[in-house]
C-alpha cells in the first residue's frame, strides 16, 4: 500500500471538515446542548433504568451524533466527489480501493470523535459523566463509525442527486435513531413496541454505548455486541467489494 496516498485523502477529509465547521461540527453540539437544557429542566428528577435522566440522556445524544456524523461525512464527501468528478482524479492515482475505503472511514471516525468530544464538553455544564466500561465505549464508538460510514459510502455510490441522500436521512436514519432509545428506556414501552425496537440496530449501539458510560443496559448486552459486530463486518465487507469492482464509479 502506498501510505501517503491514504494519509492525504484523510488529510483532505479533515481539511474539508475544517472549512465547513459551521455545518459539520457545530450543529450536533448545539442540538445536544438544546436537548440537555430542555430535558434538564423538565425531567431533572426522573430516574431511568437507575440513572438520573440527564445522565441517562448523554450517551444516547453522543451516539446519535456519532451515527449522523459518520454517515454524513462519507456520504457527502464521496457524493460531492462524484458530483464534481473529483473522484476521477482519485481513481487515476495509485490509490488502492482498500486505501480509499479506509481513508473515508478514518475521516468519518475522526469527525465523529471531534463531535463526541464537543458534546462531552457541553454535558459538563449539566453533569459530570463517569466512564463505567471504557472498552464498551470504544467498541461501540468504532463500530458505529465503521457501520454508518460504510452505509454512507454505499449510498453515495448509489445516489444520483443530493435529494437521494436527504431521503435516506429523513426516512430511515432519523426515525431509526429517534426510535432507538436515545430519549427513553425501552422498558417504558408496551411489549410489542419493545420487541420491534429489538429489531432496530441503532438501539444496540445506543444501549451498548450507554453501558460503557453508565454501566447499565436496557437490552441484552451479549446479543447487542454480536448484532452490531456482524452487521458492521458485513457492511464493511460489502463496501470493500463494491469499491473493488468499481460499482457505479467505474463502468
Amino acid at each position, binding site marked *: 500500500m*502506498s*501510505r*501517503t*496516498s491514504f*494519509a*492525504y*485523502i484523510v*488529510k*483532505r477529509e479533515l*481539511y*474539508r471538515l475544517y*472549512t465547513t465547521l459551521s455545518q459539520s461540527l457545530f450543529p450536533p453540539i448545539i442540538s445536544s446542548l438544546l436537548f440537555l437544557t430542555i430535558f434538564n429542566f423538565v425531567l431533572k428528577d426522573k430516574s431511568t433504568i437507575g440513572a438520573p435522566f440527564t445522565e441517562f440522556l448523554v450517551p444516547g445524544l453522543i451516539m446519535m451524533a456519532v451515527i449522523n456524523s459518520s454517515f454524513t461525512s462519507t456520504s457527502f464527501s464521496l457524493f*460531492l466527489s462524484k458530483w*464534481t*468528478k*473529483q473522484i*476521477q*482524479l*482519485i*481513481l*487515476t*492515482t*495509485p*490509490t*488502492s480501493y482498500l486505501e480509499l475505503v479506509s481513508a473515508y472511514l478514518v475521516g468519518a471516525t475522526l469527525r465523529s470523535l471531534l463531535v463526541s468530544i464537543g458534546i462531552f464538553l457541553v454535558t459538563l455544564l449539566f453533569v459530570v459523566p463517569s466512564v463505567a466500561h471504557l472498552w464498551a465505549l470504544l467498541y461501540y464508538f468504532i463500530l458505529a463509525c465503521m457501520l454508518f460510514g460504510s452505509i454512507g459510502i454505499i449510498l453515495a455510490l448509489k445516489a444520483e442527486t443530493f435529494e437521494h441522500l436527504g431521503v435516506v436521512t429523513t426516512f430511515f436514519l432519523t426515525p431509526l435513531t429517534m426510535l432507538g432509545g436515545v430519549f427513553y428506556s425501552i422498558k417504558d414501552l408496551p411489549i410489542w413496541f419493545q420487541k420491534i425496537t429489538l429489531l432496530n440496530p441503532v438501539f444496540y449501539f445506543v444501549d451498548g454505548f450507554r453501558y460503557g458510560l453508565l454501566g447499565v443496559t436496557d437490552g441484552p448486552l451479549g446479543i447487542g455486541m454480536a448484532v452490531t459486530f456482524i452487521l458492521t463486518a458485513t457492511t464493511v465487507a460489502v463496501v470493500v467489494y463494491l469499491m473493488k469492482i*468499481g460499482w457505479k464509479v*467505474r*463502468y
Partner: protein
Amino acid sequence: MQAIEIKNLKKDYKDEQAVKDMDFYIQEGDFFGFIGPNGAGKTTTIQCIMGLLKFEGSINIFGNDNVKDYIEARKLIGFSPQEENLDPFLNVEQALHFTAGYYGLKREKIKERVELMLKDFGLEKHRKKNTRALSGGMKRRLLLARSLVHDPKILILDEPTAAMDVELRQDFWKLMKRINKEGKTIMLTSHYIEEVEQLCNTICIVNEGKILAMDKKETIMQDLSNQELKIKSNKPVPKDLIKVEACKMIHDNTTTLVVGKDIRKKANDIIKTIEKAGIKIEEIDIKNESLEKVFLRITKNE
C-alpha cells in the same frame, strides 16, 4: 521501449460499441496525436488507459498491466481530462499539493514540485485562489500543472486547449514541446488538427471505434495527403489537354489546379504538355494538403 501498449481493446456501452478491437502502441518519448471526430472513441480509449472504465483486451504501461499492476502503472501517467474535475474545497496551491500526495510523493518533494508547477504554468499569482474562482483558461492550466506534478513519464491530454485563447494556446504548445524534448511521452487528443500537425510526431486517426490510419506524421502526409499543383498561364489551358490518372482538374480561366497523389512526380510532364501546346506558364506552385484536409477526407470517407 513501448510507453503504452494496447492490445485488442474493446469497449461496449449498453447500446453501442465505442471501441472495436483497437491495437496500437506508443513509443517512449513520442508525441502521439490521437484524432477523430466527436464520438470516435478517443475519450473512451483514454479512459480505459486511465483505468476509469472496464474493458476487454489489455493495456500495458511500460510493461505494467494497468489492471493487475495498476498501482505501478498509474504512477507513470499524468492525466488532464476533457472535463474539468478540480477540487472545489481547495485553492490552486492545495490542489497541486494534495494531488502530489495522492501520488505518494514525499513531503519535501511535494513542496519542490508544487513550486515548480506554479512557476512553469504562470500560476504563482493565483496560488491562493479557490479553484472555483479561476477563469476557464486558468482552470486548464491548473489541470495541466496537476497532471505533471508527480513528474510522470507519460502525459495524456484529452482536449487540453479547449477554452484557451490564442496566446495561452501558443504558450501551451511551447511548453508541451519542451516537456516532450525533456523525454516525456505525450498522448494528445485535440479538435484543432493544426495543433496536432504542429506538435505530434506520430498520428493516429480513429473513427467509429476503429483506427483508420496510424503512422509517423511525415509518412501519413506522404501516403494520404494529396498535393495541389497550381499553374497560372497567359491563356486558359484547354480542358482535355492534360490527362493525369486519379487526379482532379480544376480550370478557372488562366488558373489550372491539379489535385491528387504524387503530383510532384507528375508535375514535369504536365508542364511540358502545356508548354508544347504553345501556352506560356507564368507561375507554378506546389503544396501539400493540410492534415486537416486529410483528416476530413479520411473520416468522412470522401
